[in-house]
Each structure stands twice: as C-alpha cells, then as structure tokens.
C-alpha cells in the first residue's frame, strides 16, 4: 500500500501540567475523509493545530507522503499544501472576501503593490464555482451570512490547491441548507483526491461524511474505526466511556478490560 498522505506519530502537547495531546498517532490517505471525534477538551483541536502549524508540538513526528515534515508555523503547513478551515471562521471581519481569501498570500502587481483588481477577479472566479449566489465582493465579510463566510474560507483552501484539508467543525455556525452545501463540497473535494480531516461533534454527520474516525478522550486516542462497521452507539460509547467496540483498532486511551 502507498504511504499515507499524512501520518502523525506520537504527537505530544502539554499546557502547564496538563497533557492536551498524549502520544496520539493517526493517519490519512488521499481521497479519504477521516473524522476526529471527542468531547470538548479531548485534544482534537490541539492535535489539528499542530498539523496546521498554529501550535508548536512538544513531541512527535509528522510525515507527509511518507517523508518527514517540519511544520513549525502556519507558513510551513501551507508549503505542504495543508489548509485549515476553522470552527470560528478565521476571517478578518473588516476586510472583503478577496482580501481574506488571499490574506498572507496577496497577489502583487509588477509595480510591487497589492493587486486588488486581480485578486477580486480570481475571487469571483473561484466563488462562482463554489457558491454561485455569492455576489457581495465589496462588503466586509462581517456583513455576510455564515454560509457565505464559510464559502470564503473554503475558497481559500481550494484556490491554493490544498492536498490536505483540516476542517474544524465547518458546519457549527451554519444553517441546514448551508450545511448541505458544505457536505456536497466535501464529497467533491474527496473525489478530487484531497485528504480531509474533519473535526466534528455530530456523530450523524461523521457517519455520513467520513470513511474512518478517530476518537479521542482526555488527550489520548481511544481507537480508530471504519464508520461503516460500527453503529452510532458504538462511537458514542467510545467518546463517552472510552470503550472500544470489537472491530475497532484500539489506541492507548481505550478502556482496558479488567
């Protein structure tokens, strides 16, 4: 079998005396959607932030396509084509869609200045594909609906040809219709061979969208399951009690049978 797109080995992160992520290993293959589940404070967001470079790791190694990767800041992650869509929509509210899409990677004209017209044109192109209803290119994104804002965040990932996409509760702030839009988009990106790590609370949604799921509890990996082989109750059991169903691959955080 080919090397996984992403492999995180023995990842460790502590805040003070608390081990937020305690020797967690997970992997992700191209064209696969892998869920990362757990309670609030289980360490899933911290784990993802180490991959996206937003938090420096205390220990562990990251391999991209089988090769060891050095990811120490968001720019490093971007160079590995890792893009992140955050739970609280990491957009600068006071800027328009184009400025947000290109934030940190502005297109520069020959005279050395920021080329707003070109960025707007590119933004119009990509958003026409993702969300044809999007028309408000000159208002600050604070004036947009949750779905429109999320389209901007997703457009950012798609425009820069993400190979690995981290989605931190991408639908938490969205309505039903907009959630549907994101779900369709995930299917589309998946078919293009992009690997997606999806952090979500909604078991139902994980069951629908994901191929595999990792469950975390108290910073440790409870286990990894193929979502088709387990029930929603099995996954709930893993999240709440740390109890692994028989067909799961147990991790260090699994409840030991006494």
């Amino acid at each position: 079998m080919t090397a996984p797109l992403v492999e995180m080995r023995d990842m460790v992160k502590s805040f003070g005396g608390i081990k937020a992520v305690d020797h967690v290993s997970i992997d992700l293959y191209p064209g696969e959607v892998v869920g990362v589940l757990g309670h609030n404070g289980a360490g899933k967001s911290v784990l993802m932030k180490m991959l996206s470079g937003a938090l420096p790791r205390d220990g562990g190694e990251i391999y991209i396509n089988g090769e060891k990767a050095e990811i120490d800041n968001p720019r490093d992650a971007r160079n590995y084509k890792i893009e992140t869509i955050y739970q609280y929509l990491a957009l600068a509210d006071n800027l328009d869609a184009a400025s947000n899409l290109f934030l940190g990677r502005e297109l520069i004209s020959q005279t050395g200045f920021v080329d707003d017209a070109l960025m707007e044109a590119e933004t119009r192109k990509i958003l026409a594909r993702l969300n044809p209803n999007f028309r408000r290119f000159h208002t600050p994104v604070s004036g947009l609906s949750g779905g429109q804002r999320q389209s901007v965040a997703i457009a950012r990932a798609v425009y820069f040809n993400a190979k690995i996409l981290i989605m931190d509760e991408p639908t938490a702030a969205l309505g039903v219709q907009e959630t549907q839009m994101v779900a369709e988009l995930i299917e589309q990106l998946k078919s293009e061979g992009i690997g997606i790590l999806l952090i979500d609370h909604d078991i139902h949604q994980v069951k629908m969208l994901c191929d595999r799921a990792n469950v975390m509890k108290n910073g440790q990996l409870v286990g990894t399951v193929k979502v088709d082989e387990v029930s929603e109750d099995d996954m709930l059991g893993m999240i709440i009690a740390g109890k692994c169903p028989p067909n799961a691959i147990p991790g260090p955080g699994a409840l030991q049978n006494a």
Partner: protein
Amino acid sequence: MTDTPTAASAPPKPRNFFSALEVDTRLLGMIGAFVVICLVFNFLTDGRFMTPRNLFNLTIQTASVAIMATGMVFVIVTRNIDLSVGSLLATCSAMMAMTQTWFVPDWLGLGLNNPATMPIAVVVGILTGLLIGAFQGWLIGYLAIPAFIVTLGGFLIWRNVAWHLTKGQTIGPLDENFQLFGGINGTLGETWSWVFAALAVAGSFYALIQSRRTKIAHEFPVKPVWAEALIGAIIAATIIGFVAILNAYEIPAARLQRIYEARGEVLPEGVVEGYGIPISVLLLILIVIVMTIVARRTRLGRYIFATGGNPEAAALAGINTRLLTVKVFAIMGMLCAIAAIVASSRQTFHSNDIGTLDELRVIAAAVIGGTALAGGMGTIYGAVLGALIMQSLQSGMAMVGVDAPYQNMVVGSVLVLAVFLDILYRRRTGDRT
C-alpha cells in the same frame, strides 16, 4: 442574513446620487462639519475667519498634529494606543535642537547655519523617533506588555529625557535652513505652488483613469462616466481652490522688501507676492499620500488592517503580528520625529513644553476622523480632517474670544459627540465592526 435571491441579484443599481458617485459618506459628513464650522466662525468674527491669512495659519497649526495622526491611525487600527507621542516629539525635538546648536557647530566645527546642519539634524531626529518607537513596539509585540502601559510609561519617560538632555533650557534659535519647515518661514511661493497644483491635478486624473481602466480590464462594473467626471472636477477644484487661497495670503510689503534686499535686488514698484504652500503643509500632503498608499496598496497595510480586524485570523494566515506591532510603532515614532521638525521650527526654538498634550490631540484627531478604537477601521484622510476640524474649532473660538477653559470644554464635547455620531452612522449602515 441568509442567501435570499434578492440579496444575490447583481449588480445593484445605484440608489441615489451619492451611491452612484461611490464616495465615502463619512468623508462627506466630515467635510460638511468642517464647512459648517468655518461658516459659523466666519459669521461670528465678521468675516475674519475665512481670510487667506487665517486659513493659511490654520494649515500650519494643523500640520504637526495631523502628521502624527496619520500614524496613530495604524496604531489604533491594530488595537493599540500610543500615549507617548507628545513626549516622543519633545525628545526628538531636543535631540535635533542639540544637534543644530551644539553637535554640528561645536563638535564638528562647522559653525552656525552650515548647509549640512539641517540634513544631519533631520537624520538624527528621525533615527531617534524610529528607534524609540521600534523599542516601544518591541515591548508591546514581543514582551506582550499592553500598549497603554508601555506608552503611559513612555509618556513620562520621554518628556523627561528631553528635559534631562536640555537641562530644561530653551534651545534656539534653530538653524536657518531647518526653520524652513516651520510654516511661514518656508513657503513654495506662488509659481511653485501652481506647479504643485498642476502636478496634483494631473496625478489625480491619472489615478482615476488608471483605476477605471483596471476595472474595465477585469470586467468589473464601473461608475457612470458623468460620475467619474464630476469626481475629477471636484478634486481639481479643491486642489486649485486650496492653492489659490494659500497664494492669496500676501507677504507684507516690509518683509518682501527685506527678501529682495537679501538677494541684492530692489523691490519693484507695485509688486506683491503670495506665500503659497508652506513646506510643512507640503510635507503633510506627501505623508498623507505615502501613508494612504501603505494602507491600501501594500501587504504591510493589508496586514495592519487584518490584524486589527481579527488578530487570531491574521496569525493563522501566517502573519507575524509581533513584528507588525514593532513596525507600526516604528512608523509612529518616525512620524513623531517629522512632527517635531515642524513643531520646533515653527516656534524657531526647542522648548521644554513642546508637544505637551499632543498625544490627546492626536488620538482625538484619529478618532474624530472615524478610526475605531475597537480596531480594524480607520482612514488616513479621516484623521487629517479630524485634526483640521479640532484646530479650526480651537482657533475659531480663540478669535471669537472664548476663554481658554471653555475652549477645551467645547473640544472635549465635540470629541464625544463625534464618536457618538459615528456609532449612529455605523448602526444605520450596518457596519458591525
């Protein structure tokens, strides 16, 4: 706030005259306020307020605070504050005054009024401002000490560093060439002022046409041609009117005679000369242009606004927000030094109290000009207009004969009122930030 088909129907037809022009209504409001202030004072002073002489004085009185206000916009946009600008101005002024009266003439042995004195003093001043500003920015960005505290400390420290350096003495007169930055002692004269006006009009037209071309090239909607033409005409009229007023302020005959005598010529009969644009005001105009370009057309400016809007998002986008803080405060420090050049040369000497209370005027100017203390919003031209509005209130009241305590009470009330109006405006237009 959902995707209703109406919200998506594009492109919206201009609803009224002003939206067709696509001008900032807040800018119009400020210009309106300024015009009203001018008219009211003109009425109260029997026409003495809107004379070329008074308007000329207004521009040179505004220059120093306005220069610093452009930098304060960046500081406040990044959710910081700088309380030390008045004190920093004093330290820069002290350094430059000592360079001119002691370091260059005595240490370097170049004597007084050497042509090299002015450039050396300017470099010394700007380096002083830049380094102190960058240092304060480093304390704020890298050591995470709140800007309020760092600059409150700076407010006490730099005021008294200036005192210590000069032993509290007034230092002057300053170098003759240096005094050219002071306003009345250095103006472009009528001819060069008109040259400047012509260049400014040509430059504005070029920018307007270029912007329209870019939009058409990308197939974006453009304004109707009449709207573009009207805006161009208004800009041209403003520039020409501004220069005409400054040119209309005539140099007094006695002074003109001295100028001709200094050149070894005799003043011909019936010759009158206008002052034209003061060099300090020219400096302000150049700074406004540069700062506006930085704000709108460079990555630095984009990052300043992004960081102000959402610091976390900016950091996640790979922006080094700590270094950005250092840069913003370094720019602020540099502008304090330039303001110090203008302020000290205007009074022709360095005094111990130079720049006192300027920090409050500068902050007030930026805030009246629409800079939001919550961060992420503000314009350079707004801050300059804010400074102009405050200065015109103050000198108008002085002309009317309002007592000093009442003057400050009015300015204070105007500050609060301006921010309240801004809040109302934003509520109506639906800007949430």
